[in-house]
């Protein structure tokens, strides 16, 4: 714009951060003392780094400065006005004064500016006592407010969980920035209405976003409130307990805020808040301290009236409430009886991976030592065991080789078979940070257009179910382009030759045709994965819970070996487990073939499917279930119900009376995660503490306590009075498991031992392309059962907060398929397989506006058992790991005319909610 020079004069351009020499630090003077900072630092950060505090309301460590509040004012020599420190970059030789009467007056004026229009409804406000405006008003001595006037703005109560009170808003934009920069969701924005600036869903519509609640957490005043907790508390009344979330395997830290008088959880917060603005208590590379919608709004099941509070025993056809002691004595008597009559092998047990490490350890000890049966298994068998056994075979221990920190700092991320933002939202957030902060190359291999695929640099929409074929093609591309790591080819030449021979045999045309991905794309991805210096592979249910999951994990490991990921620091594999403590139950040896510490059991017992098979044959007389619900989880094709009905004594320990519990002979009420002590191990292998926040209702007891009581009655006293005593025993058996030095523990790699050991022989079989399971018939679609953002397992369907966000299971089909079938959102279709058919309501386009559907694919959330879509799918059991794969299959979908007698079911989730008038921004 040189032609404007005669109007404005010449301007000295400010150097951009990347134009500065990173090696050349800048010197500045803060309050008379010389300081040295790296270029690109803001004055605010420079002041903070010197250990000095400067008040501010819109600054937060987790996103870039915005400069809206005008409180961090400092005096800079040579500038006529006070400068906002957070947005001013440091320049060479700057002289900054942080504390003089002029700065203090400026800050006071900024506070006063907001107090004049702030409603001062502190007695009513939920933030009262935990309000930054209050704190700064007192801290900066703002007591003389001139003519105050109140903005009269109605409250926005349209969103299902968040209320926006714009009278209280100070327009600091922290909510908008955290949504835009940290979550990369960008659902919130400023808009004008009635002459006032509002914050809310963009375009003044009903907010329907991912509901992570980070906006609620960072709001320094009470402008954004939690609808479920609103007006029911004052911050100082609540007892705060830090614990670990029990939904997904990310292991987020939650703060349960409970009313100590009523002994109820009032709300759930996380370490992220306006108080953590300088990054205290949060390490942003591990996580910004936030949590997801499930963690924040999904606790109502704890106080559900359907919770079991008393032991139940079968009398005839019904279950009747009995005193706890009677039930437990009955269980012990039956165990002793069965053991005496049929031997210990007639007893089997299943445990859920939602229980703590201590309970998993005690369970396997109880089964193996007290009862003496090897037949026990955990819900890690539903998928995680595929990866655990593969990783264990290659590396000696079945655990991720990287932690979230490596995901954040990765240069290349390969996400295969994972809808990470739905299943593990906080791990997904690290991928987003890698995209935003570190400009990582993200390759998403998924048939569906998931949220992360929309942000990724490369989205490879493979044909559904062709993950294994894709991996073979990718390995072939790596070998053909000569991208294998020289270290690997030099150290293990015969393994490399075996790979090469197997790769040559793969017909690339068939791979291209089966996956729908061209050769050029394979080569581009191979180039990225092989040449990137920090490559992290993330995989989950798309690999683990599908047929051949074990083989596909081995293929991923082959790829990692070939590209030298184990040698490069910061590279590795990250399997994401579905449930919160799948890593823990495996490490504690609560699965059939592994002992504590993942040592192989000398006599492996029957696995989940085999236990049910044995039960059906009448070999298992007594089945002990801890939190497990095989009837509700496994497809009807496995005839689980029939198997459990044949068991002479079925004992279920659970929070609720599940489908399986209804078949049980004894049901013992157990404690939820907020009612007991213990530890969870997340997918990284990091051990997190679980602390008790509330008293258990009725006669509920922690699962470990129920086990010790039964053991005592059986004459094998287990002398534990607290969970910490069990933890002591575990740490004696597995030294360093809870220790800070091994947290998370990384396996000592045993790859050199793995490579020559019968490796080359197994390769050709692994690389042979499996048969194409698809039939060419018209109207056949691939049905995928998967997780959605607002649910985890079936427990979350009992939390009102989450059922409001995702009330029912709908079959999602793509828009093209909907047109082809002639159904609209809200219509119904009949889904048919050889096992039967079900009528399912339909959602068109994307799952609640997030996961976009590919043509020829339909998706149903696995959390909902009504309609019974899961019963339609076939189940394949992996020959090596015995993992049942039952979450995908081919179905025929045909439209069903609407039933005139039945009122129209809500079709699209978004239009069924309070968003009916807005059209839904997420649609």
């Amino acid at each position, binding site marked *: 714009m040189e032609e404007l020079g005669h109007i404005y004069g010449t301007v000295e351009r400010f150097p951009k951060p990347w134009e500065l020499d990173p090696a050349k630090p800048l010197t500045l003077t803060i309050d008379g003392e010389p300081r040295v900072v790296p270029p690109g630092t803001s004055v605010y950060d420079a002041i903070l780094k010197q250990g000095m505090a400067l008040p501010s309301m819109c600054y937060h460590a987790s996103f870039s400065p915005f400069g809206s509040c005008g409180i961090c004012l400092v005096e800079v020599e040579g500038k006529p006005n006070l400068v906002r420190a957070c947005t001013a970059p440091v320049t060479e030789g700057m002289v900054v004064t942080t504390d003089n009467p002029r700065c203090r007056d400026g800050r006071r004026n900024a506070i006063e500016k907001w107090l004049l229009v702030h409603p001062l409804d502190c*007695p009513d406000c939920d933030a009262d006592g935990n309000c930054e405006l209050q704190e700064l008003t007192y801290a900066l001595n703002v007591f003389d407010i001139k003519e105050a006037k109140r903005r009269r703005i109605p409250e926005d109560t349209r969103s299902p969980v968040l209320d926006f009170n714009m009278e209280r808003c100070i327009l600091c934009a922290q909510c908008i920035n955290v949504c835009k920069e940290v979550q990369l969701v960008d659902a919130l924005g400023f808009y004008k209405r009635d002459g006032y600036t509002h914050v809310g869903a963009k375009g003044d519509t009903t907010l329907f976003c991912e509901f992570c609640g980070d906006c609620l957490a960072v709001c320094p005043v009470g402008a954004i409130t939690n609808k479920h907790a609103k007006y*029911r508390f004052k911050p100082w009344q609540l007892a705060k307990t830090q614990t670990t979330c029990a939904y997904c395997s990310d292991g987020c830290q939650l703060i349960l805020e409970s009313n100590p008088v009523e002994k109820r959880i009032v709300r759930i917060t996380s370490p992220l808040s306006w108080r953590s603005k300088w990054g205290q208590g949060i390490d942003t590379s591990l996580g910004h301290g936030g949590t997801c919608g499930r963690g924040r709004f999904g606790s109502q099941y704890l106080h559900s009236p359907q919770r079991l509070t008393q032991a139940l025993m079968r009398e005839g056809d019904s279950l009747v409430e009995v005193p706890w002691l009677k039930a437990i004595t009955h269980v012990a008597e039956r165990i002793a009886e069965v053991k005496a009559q049929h031997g210990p092998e007639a007893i089997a047990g299943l445990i859920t991976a939602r229980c703590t490490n201590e309970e998993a350890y005690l369970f396997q000890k109880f089964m193996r030592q007290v009862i003496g049966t090897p037949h026990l298994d955990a819900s890690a068998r539903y998928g995680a065991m595929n990866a655990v056994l593969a990783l264990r075979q290659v590396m000696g221990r079945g655990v991720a080789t990287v932690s979230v920190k490596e995901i954040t700092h990765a240069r290349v991320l390969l996400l295969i078979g994972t809808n990470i933002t739905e299943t593990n939202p906080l791990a997904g957030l690290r991928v987003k940070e890698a995209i935003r902060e570190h400009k990582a190359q993200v390759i998403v291999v998924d048939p569906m257009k998931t949220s992360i695929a929309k942000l990724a640099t490369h989205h490879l929409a493979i044909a559904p179910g062709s993950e294994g074929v894709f991996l073979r093609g990718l390995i072939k591309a790596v070998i053909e382009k000569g991208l294998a790591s020289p270290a690997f080819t030099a150290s293990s030449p015969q393994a490399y030759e075996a790979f090469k021979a197997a790769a040559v045999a793969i017909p690339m045309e068939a791979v291209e045709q089966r996956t729908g991905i061209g050769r050029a794309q394979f080569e581009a991805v191979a180039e990225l994965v092989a040449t990137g210096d920090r490559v992290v592979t993330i995989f989950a249910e798309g690999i683990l819970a599908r047929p051949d999951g074990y083989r596909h994990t081995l293929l991923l490991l082959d790829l990692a070996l070939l590209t030298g990921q184990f040698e490069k620091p910061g590279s590795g594999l990250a399997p994401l487990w579905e449930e919160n403590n799948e890593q823990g139950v495996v490490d504690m040896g609560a699965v059939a073939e592994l002992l504590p510490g993942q040592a192989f059991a000398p006599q492996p017992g029957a696995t989940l499917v085999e236990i049910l098979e044995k039960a059906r044959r009448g070999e298992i007389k007594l089945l002990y279930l801890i939190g497990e619900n095989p009837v509700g989880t496994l497809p009807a094709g496995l005839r689980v119900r029939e198997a459990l009905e044949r068991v002479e004594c079925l004992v279920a320990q659970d929070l609720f009376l599940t489908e399986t519990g209804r078949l049980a002979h004894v049901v013992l009420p157990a404690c939820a995660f907020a009612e007991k002590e213990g530890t969870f191990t997340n997918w990284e292998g990091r051990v997190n503490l679980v602390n008790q926040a509330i008293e258990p209702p009725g006669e509920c007891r922690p699962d470990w306590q129920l086990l010790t009581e039964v053991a005592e009655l059986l004459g094998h006293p287990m002398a534990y009075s607290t969970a910490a005593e069990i933890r002591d025993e575990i740490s004696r058996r597995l030294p360093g498991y809870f220790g800070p030095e091994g947290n998370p523990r990384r396996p000592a790699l045993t790859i050199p031992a793995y490579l020559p050991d019968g490796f080359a022989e197994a390769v050709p079989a692994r690389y042979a392309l499996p048969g194409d399971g698809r039939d060419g018939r018209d109207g056949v679609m691939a049905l995928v059962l998967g997780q959605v953002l607002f649910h985890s397992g079936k427990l979350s369907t009992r939390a009102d907060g989450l059922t409001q966000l995702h009330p029912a299971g709908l079959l999602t089909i793509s828009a093209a398929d909907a047109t082809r079938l002639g159904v609209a959102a809200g219509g119904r279709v009949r889904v048919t397989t050889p096992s039967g058919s079900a009528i399912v309501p339909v959602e068109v386009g994307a799952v609640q506006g997030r996961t976009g559907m590919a043509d020829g694919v339909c998706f149903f959330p696995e959390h909902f058992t009504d309609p019974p879509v899961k019963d339609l799918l076939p189940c394949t059991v992996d020959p090596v790991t015995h993992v049942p794969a039952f979450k995908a299959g081919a179905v025929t979908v045909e439209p069903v005319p609407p039933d005139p007698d039945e009122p129209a079911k809500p079709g699209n989730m978004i239009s069924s909610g309070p968003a009916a008038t807005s059209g839904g921004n997420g649609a």
Partner: protein
Amino acid sequence: MTLKAGFRRLLERVLLKEIVEAMAVTFKHVFTRADTVQYPRQKRRLPDTNRGALVLLHYEDGTERCVGCTLCEIACPSHCIRVVSDQEEGKPLTRFAKEFYIDMTRCVFCGFCVEACPVNALAMIKMYEYASDDKRDLIFDKEKLHALGDLHHQDAKAYLVAHRQEAVDEESRQYRYRHPSPLAK
């Protein structure tokens, strides 16, 4: 002791001087007005500042003043107040006390709760006769506190004025919080 002083003491003892003096004081009161109040037939007039039973007040239009902010609960040194607040059904902007208890057996009548109340919903009245043979009757709930407040509204107002809580009510109104009137969307 001198002889003179000894003689005087003897004379005082013979003439019962101390008793005469004492009786003079006693008989003087026969001719003055008695101060004894014949409770319960008679009752004292109490000053406006008297700290008696605690009550909850309504606004003139009959709506509850209390907004359930629990500041009284914080201010109370003997922890005798318990407030459970909630959102009023259908009025998203209205917080109110769903339950409100004052344990009068523990109250020390310091009046801090009245000082703390930002809406002048609490006051003390001149009534102090709530003795009972059942201690549970002494835990006043919201209903009872409101009933007492309605009955002794004058006293409660007088208390607030005497303690300078409402002396300049109109002037201080802008710093006193009142529920906003429900706003139309």
